[in-house]
């Protein structure tokens, strides 16, 4: 039986999700991810998101390293990294990060180093914000389950 603690935490999860959707941080692809979680894969969402974090941080490190090269010429490699980040961000519903990647690719296609560095700053910031919010979401969700709530998919 759900206690009022679990109900309150469920409301917190829903409020945070609504905020993230409203702000354009996440899109419906994140809901698709939640739909794939069930008893046979109970930690699927956090597993996928943690892989996304690992991949993204590696890509962002590589991008910064490429852009800081004194004689930058490997825009093709930069484009490949951006495409990877764009694809994985789309796949988990990280809408804002994906949209910044689109701007990044436009700058890279123009061989615009200054533009690329500027967009990379934005990308790193937005990625950090996303990561913090998703960690917060998983924390509340974990507390909710411990308080006697059931896992995804959420029942309203």
């Amino acid at each position, binding site marked *: 039986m759900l206690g009022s603690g679990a109900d309150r935490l469920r409301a917190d999860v829903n409020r945070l999700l609504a905020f993230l959707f409203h702000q354009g941080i996440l899109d419906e*692809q994140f809901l*698709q991810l939640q739909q794939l979680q069930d008893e046979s894969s109970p930690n699927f969402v956090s597993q996928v998101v943690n*892989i996304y974090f690992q*991949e993204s941080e590696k890509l962002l490190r590589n991008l910064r390293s490429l852009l800081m090269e004194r004689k930058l010429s490997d825009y093709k490699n930069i484009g490949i990294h951006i495409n990877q980040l764009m694809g994985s961000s*789309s796949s988990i519903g990280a809408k804002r990060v994906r949209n910044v990647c689109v701007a990044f690719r436009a700058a890279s296609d123009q061989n615009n180093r200054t533009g690329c560095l500027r967009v990379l700053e934005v990308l790193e910031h937005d990625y950090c914000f996303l990561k913090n919010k998703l960690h917060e979401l998983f924390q509340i969700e974990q507390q909710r389950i411990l308080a006697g709530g059931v896992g995804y998919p959420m029942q309203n």
Partner: protein
Amino acid sequence: MSGNGASSSSLNMISGEDVVNNNLSALVVDDSPLLRLLHDIHLKKYGLKVQVAENGKVAVDLFHLGASFDLVLMDKEMPVMNGVEATKELRAMGVTSMIVGVTSKDGPGEQQAFMEAGLDYCFEKPLTPEIISFLLEELNKHNKD
């Protein structure tokens, strides 16, 4: 099966419950562990037996070793051997599996080059349940012919 590009907007959407099939097999070819996991779980939900490969060469080697799959999800940009090269090799080997390209947002010219390598369809990431349902429906139709 002849190459025939399709956008998600032109698909006849059916319910995923209509296409649960325990007889179909799929190979997910992608250098991203995230995309491999996502597509793996997604396809298994529809009852497919799924194998994964981290680049085009691993995929081609599987076929050389005698493996066969009804469906191949082929990422475009991969190290060692990319999706375009892998698709060309598979078709040159006589592989008749449905090969579906999966790309990031590319220009029309790049998708066209990928299609011309021998794809049946090409979609942008991510593959939605509707697109997977469509592909499985097409596979079921093809298997009945």
